[in-house]
């Protein structure tokens, strides 16, 4: 056999790991057949999940991979830190056939976790308030055996039913238990060296004393850990290919290898190790035993950890020494079907590569070369053939695949958004308050392997304003292990950056005295931390405070924040955050982020044709306070929108090139390169109860203004914004047919806009689930972008110019009608939960059906020749927890209602047809009330009702429109009539002025364009304005938070945080971008928050947003 340890090991946590367990990964795309997953044996064990239970009460679930390919498709998330236990986790055990994880903590609480829709949630809780000594799943995964310290043993089903339990009143305690390979008996080992045998029904069979007075540590049969192949139990039991062996390890370092419990002549293996951890590899050929060397020559505190391998005959095959000498072996588990061995020593997990045969000479040579090389990159320089180089590079591929910063590359890691759709799951902790200034220190940690890797540290610099500085991690090498304990305070004091004039307070706090005091406090905490496990996350590996990386500045109200890069090679403007205040804090907070894109890689990949892909959006309220100013064109839209105090956002996309808009793009997926689509305005919450009066007022005002604008007959006010817009539009749109057809595409695809005419925004929001599903909002938006004329625009300008034009186009459509486009917009981006429901209705439905049914098992595809009996999983009775159940039934309802599948929206379909289809779908799809609430508008239903009354203007038809049943009839007719009507107007009406002439011409062209586009293929329209191709150096991305949905029953706002947030707080938020939720922040503890983000956020930006949010005073 062959054994070598992975050198550059990422498997390190921040606290002792007490238990390990490994399970193969079931691919996502696996189709479930007849209640079980069929797995391909050859590929199944290549990837898996390593579960760790640590002293900080966190269970880590981390992805592992044994193949050397560099860029395999990793799962969306490669690490989960499962929180929930209150004391240190002593046992983690996978149930592989059912893909569940059992975790036991030292207080005796057992959780059974189940993965559902990408998140791990607790399915079962068992609390006997007695410490658990052992937990073991049966080999078929259907039963669990739990041993308690007081001699109580319990056998239950995987679903939580108790089969039997017994209190073994022995002279000593039960310390471990195991199932026989056929699951017909359970063996228990006791502290006095006894072996107790009971059958599967709880009847005592035998009681054998193996070694008088020597405590048994572990027992393990050398059968497969789980029967992953379904076969007849009889053949499995009788048709043994080899003699199965039970290994029993004792505290004194002996291991007995027995054929049965009454084996009178067991093979005795003297390992010479203490604190033995052992496990058979899955094939049963090798027993890995790890422990501390027995001979007492070592000084206390220094451990000589060895790992031995024994055959099933008890012969020693190999010995290796583990490099860790500071703590003993705490856990051990095999993985990847015997190709990997994970050995935990304290916080470190050693990953060993195991080969069952004598290693080929090539491998030995490669290992020797690899040891001589510093990095993987160096392999490219070797004078070797390419294939050999690749094989050599394969040795560098880590078993633990997760996105963590490499040593020395932390600075780069935090300054760039993660690649692709990689999402970083972080925790932000408020460390301590500075003693003098009481300014808070916050640290951002990356979650990894059940622990936390410090990334960034921030510090509040002002008592008055919520301003922060973020320290630069690159200045002092992070390779240094933990230097902060000794030198940090002094260096912090001396090296305060003189450039920061603003944080005088901070400098004041760096007196040596303070530093000393802090140092003492820290040291105390460090020592105290030994006792209490959940005390304190690890200190930063780098020196904070030696330089400032970025600053978060604020206005006095704490409503506007800027993130400024201070360090030399950081973008000076990292982004801005603005909050909208609401009276009485009754509304959920609304934030607008303007983030500078720090990486170009993504956009190069995303926009295939070298597209300009500038994504801009605008929020038109509070524009007077915007940081940036806009060009003249934009000011039109701005003034127009500014005149509407009701919070109507304008959504649009700019400079979407022709190539991208030809067919309706597929719905957004995580993997797809992001199309440069506008970020949605999610802020059309038109009203909340306290703002009713204000709203009514504003609506009235708006109505007047709209009236004034809409009226075509009188020669318009020369400064009327609309006319200006129209002029601009005319000039821009007239020369090219292509542009026209684009705008028509816009009209076609952006059905949301058309449909919502004559409705108040919230009404639209109320009934429009179907719209958002079928139209797959980003698909509509490229077309919108196409309509935008090519104006050369300086790069940092926001999109208001385009916005105004969009508005103008809309007004043209509306011209003849007396319905006003009050809030004529349905937010194209949906809250994540809605996407979730609508997009994945089918899968949800599937799950819903099986919600109460037994959960399926995972089975390996057996050898084809054998005919197999199907074994149904029968032992499950318990339904999932209540919340899950509700959720499932809800989604199931949705699915059933939309039984006729939504007709796709073909690219060239006429507008009416599309509308009809959409309306039909909408009528079919009746959303449950609470689901309907989860639109982007955070409006309480009460407020919405009132607001509808308050507007006064809505005629009956408008109210009817909100009924999903009627809108079907209403929709096509309204749009058609508007067309006809306006056409008639243009024909008959004599033009009273130049403006009206131009306007009518534009209208005609638009209409022609509509007809054209309904016949011509859309791809033909390809305007490529050269000015638009110019790409600004740094894109500014505008994003908004996702509005929570109002839960009527519990009277709270709700957002789906994917189980990452455990406390409700007004500070919790989610940011969406291109319809994807790209950042979320939520409270999990009094001073701990989770912060998850992905592109376009870099760690420093995300941290800045979180810092701005956490002390934000006004909602």
């Amino acid at each position, binding site marked *: 056999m062959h054994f070598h340890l992975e050198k550059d090991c990422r498997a390190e946590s921040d606290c002792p790991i007490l238990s390990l367990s490994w399970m193969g990964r079931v691919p996502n795309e696996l189709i479930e057949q007849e209640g079980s997953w069929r797995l391909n044996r050859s590929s199944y064990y290549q990837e898996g999940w390593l579960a760790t239970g640590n002293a900080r009460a966190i269970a880590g679930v981390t992805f592992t991979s044994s193949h050397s390919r560099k860029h395999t498709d990793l799962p969306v998330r490669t690490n989960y830190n499962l929180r929930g236990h209150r004391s240190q986790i002593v046992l983690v055990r996978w149930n592989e056939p059912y893909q569940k994880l059992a975790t036991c903590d030292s207080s005796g609480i057992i959780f059974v976790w189940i993965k559902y829709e990408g998140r791990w949630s607790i399915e079962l809780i068992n609390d006997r308030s007695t410490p658990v000594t052992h937990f073991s799943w049966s080999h078929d995964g259907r039963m669990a055996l739990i041993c308690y310290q007081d001699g109580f043993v319990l056998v239950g089903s995987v679903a939580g039913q108790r089969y039997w339990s017994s209190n073994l009143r022995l002279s000593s305690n039960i310390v471990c238990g195991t199932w026989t390979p056929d699951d017909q008996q359970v063996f228990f080992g006791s502290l006095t060296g006894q072996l107790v045998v009971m059958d599967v029904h709880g009847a005592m069979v035998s009681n054998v004393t193996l070694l008088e007075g020597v405590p048994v540590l572990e027992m393990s049969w050398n059968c497969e850990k789980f029967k992953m192949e379904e076969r007849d139990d009889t053949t499995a039991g009788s048709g043994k290919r080899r003699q199965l062996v039970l290994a029993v390890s004792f505290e004194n370092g002996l291991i007995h290898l027995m054929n049965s419990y009454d084996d009178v002549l067991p093979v005795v293996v003297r390992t010479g190790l203490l604190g033995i951890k052992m496990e058979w590899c899955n094939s049963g050929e090798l027993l890995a035993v790890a422990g501390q060397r027995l001979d007492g020559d070592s000084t206390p505190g220094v451990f000589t950890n060895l790992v031995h391998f024994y055959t099933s005959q008890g*012969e020693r*095959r190999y010995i290796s020494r583990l490099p860790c000498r500071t703590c003993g072996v705490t856990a051990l588990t095999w993985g990847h079907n015997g190709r990997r061995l994970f050995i935990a020593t304290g916080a470190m997990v050693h990953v060993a590569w195991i080969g069952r045969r004598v*290693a080929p*000479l090539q491998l030995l*040579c490669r290992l020797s070369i690899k040891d001589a090389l510093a990095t993987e990159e160096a392999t490219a320089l070797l*004078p*070797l053939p390419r294939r050999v180089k690749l094989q050599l590079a394969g040795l560098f591929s880590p078993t633990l695949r997760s996105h963590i910063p490499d040593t020395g590359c932390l600075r780069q890691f935090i300054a760039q958004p993660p690649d692709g759709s990689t999402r970083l799951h972080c925790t932000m902790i408020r460390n301590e308050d500075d003693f003098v200034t009481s300014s808070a220190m916050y640290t951002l940690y990356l979650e990894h392997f059940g622990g936390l890797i410090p990334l960034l540290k921030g510090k509040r610099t002002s008592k008055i304003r919520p301003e922060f500085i973020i320290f630069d991690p690159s200045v002092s090498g992070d390779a240094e292990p933990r230097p902060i304990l000794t030198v940090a305070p002094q260096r912090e004091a001396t090296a305060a950056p003189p450039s920061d004039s603003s944080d005088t307070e901070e400098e004041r706090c760096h007196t040596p005295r303070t530093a000393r005091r802090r140092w003492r406090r820290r040291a105390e905490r460090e020592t105290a931390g030994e006792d209490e496990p959940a005390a304190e996350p690890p200190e930063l590996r780098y020196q904070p405070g030696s330089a400032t990386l970025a600053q978060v500045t604020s206005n006095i109200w704490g409503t506007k924040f800027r993130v400024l890069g201070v360090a030399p090679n950081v973008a000076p403007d990292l982004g801005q955050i603005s909050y909208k205040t609401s009276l009485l804090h009754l509304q959920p907070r609304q934030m607008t982020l303007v983030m500078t894109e720090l990486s170009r890689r993504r956009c190069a990949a995303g926009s295939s044709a070298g597209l300009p892909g500038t994504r801009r959006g605008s929020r038109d309220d509070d524009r007077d306070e915007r940081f940036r100013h806009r060009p003249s064109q934009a000011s039109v839209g701005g003034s127009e929108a500014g005149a509407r105090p009701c919070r109507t956002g304008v959504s649009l996309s700019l400079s979407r090139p022709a190539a991208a808009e030809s067919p309706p793009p597929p719905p957004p997926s995580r993997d797809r390169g992001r199309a440069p689509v506008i970020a949605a305005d999610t802020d059309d919450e038109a009203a909340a109860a306290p703002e009713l009066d204000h709203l009514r007022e504003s609506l009235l005002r708006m109505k007047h203004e709209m009236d004034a604008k809409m009226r075509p007959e009188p020669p318009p006010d020369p400064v009327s914004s609309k006319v200006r817009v129209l002029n601009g539009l005319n000039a821009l749109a007239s020369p090219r047919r292509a542009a026209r057809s684009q705008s028509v595409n816009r009209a076609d695809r952006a059905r949301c806009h058309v449909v919502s005419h004559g409705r108040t925004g919230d009404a639209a929001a109320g009934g429009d689930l179907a719209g958002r599903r079928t139209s797959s909002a980003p698909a509509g938006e490229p077309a919108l972008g196409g309509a935008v004329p090519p104006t050369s625009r300086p790069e940092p300008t926001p999109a208001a110019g385009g916005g105004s034009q969009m508005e103008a186009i809309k007004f043209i459509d509306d011209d003849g009608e007396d319905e006003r486009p009050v809030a004529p917009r349905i937010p194209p981006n949906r809250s994540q939960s809605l996407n979730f429901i609508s997009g994945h209705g089918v899968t949800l439905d599937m799950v819903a059906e099986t919600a109460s049914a037994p959960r399926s098992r995972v089975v390996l595809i057996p050898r084809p020749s054998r005919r197999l009996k199907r074994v149904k999983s029968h032992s499950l009775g318990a339904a999932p927890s209540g919340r899950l159940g509700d959720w499932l039934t809800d989604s199931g309802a949705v699915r059933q209602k939309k039984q006729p599948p939504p007709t796709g929206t073909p690219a060239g379909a006429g507008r009416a047809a599309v509308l009809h289809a959409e309306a039909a779908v909408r009528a079919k799809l009746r959303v449950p009330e609470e689901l309907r609430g989860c639109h982007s508008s955070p409006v309480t239903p009460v407020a919405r009702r009132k607001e509808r009354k308050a507007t006064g203007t809505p005629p009956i038809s408008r109210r009817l429109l909100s009924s999903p049943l009627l809108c079907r009839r209403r929709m096509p007719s309204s749009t058609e009539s508007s067309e006809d009507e306006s056409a008639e107007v243009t024909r008959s009406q004599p033009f009273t002025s130049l403006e009206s002439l131009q306007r009518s011409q534009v209208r005609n062209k638009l209409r022609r364009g509509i007809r054209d586009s309904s016949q011509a293929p859309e791809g033909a329209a390809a305007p490529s304005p050269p000015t638009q191709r110019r790409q600004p150096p740094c894109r500014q991305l505008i994003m908004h938070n996702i509005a929570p949905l109002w839960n009527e029953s519990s009277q709270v706002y709700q957002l789906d945080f994917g189980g990452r947030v455990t406390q409700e707080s007004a500070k919790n938020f989610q940011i969406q971008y291109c319809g994807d939720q790209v950042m979320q922040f939520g409270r999990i503890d009094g001073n701990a928050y989770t912060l998850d983000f992905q592109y376009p956020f870099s760690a420093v930006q995300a941290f800045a947003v979180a810092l701005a949010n956490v002390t934000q005073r006004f909602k």
Partner: protein
Amino acid sequence: MHCCYYHTANLLLTWRHKGIIMSEGAEKMDEDPQYGGCEGPDATYVKLRSSDNHEFIVKREHALTSGTIRNMLSGPGQFKENETNEVTFKEIPSHVLQMVCMYFTYKVRYTNSSTEIPDFQIDPKVALELLMAANFLYC
């Protein structure tokens, strides 16, 4: 057995100037006096010749560890190697071929055995050449 192997290695250093290595089988003379030669189709030994013209006489069974040598010696066609039981490696110098031969012994010795396996030590200085040779020899 185990000692024998290292004994071989020592011999190897001393006998190198002669360019002859008797692999493990040579040590067994006392228990198995007839050890055959390198001639004929059923010869016990084969001769491996390095680029610098050193000859390594190893057991055929050991040499068959290498897939390339196995193909050469047992190919269906009429090869020179097939008849003479001698393989010349134009690109493998003797200090590498020596390691290869040692590996053959190591591999045969510890395959299907239940004794403890020592690590096969490779000098990093020859690791690259050895890797190329091993890659060619397919072992």
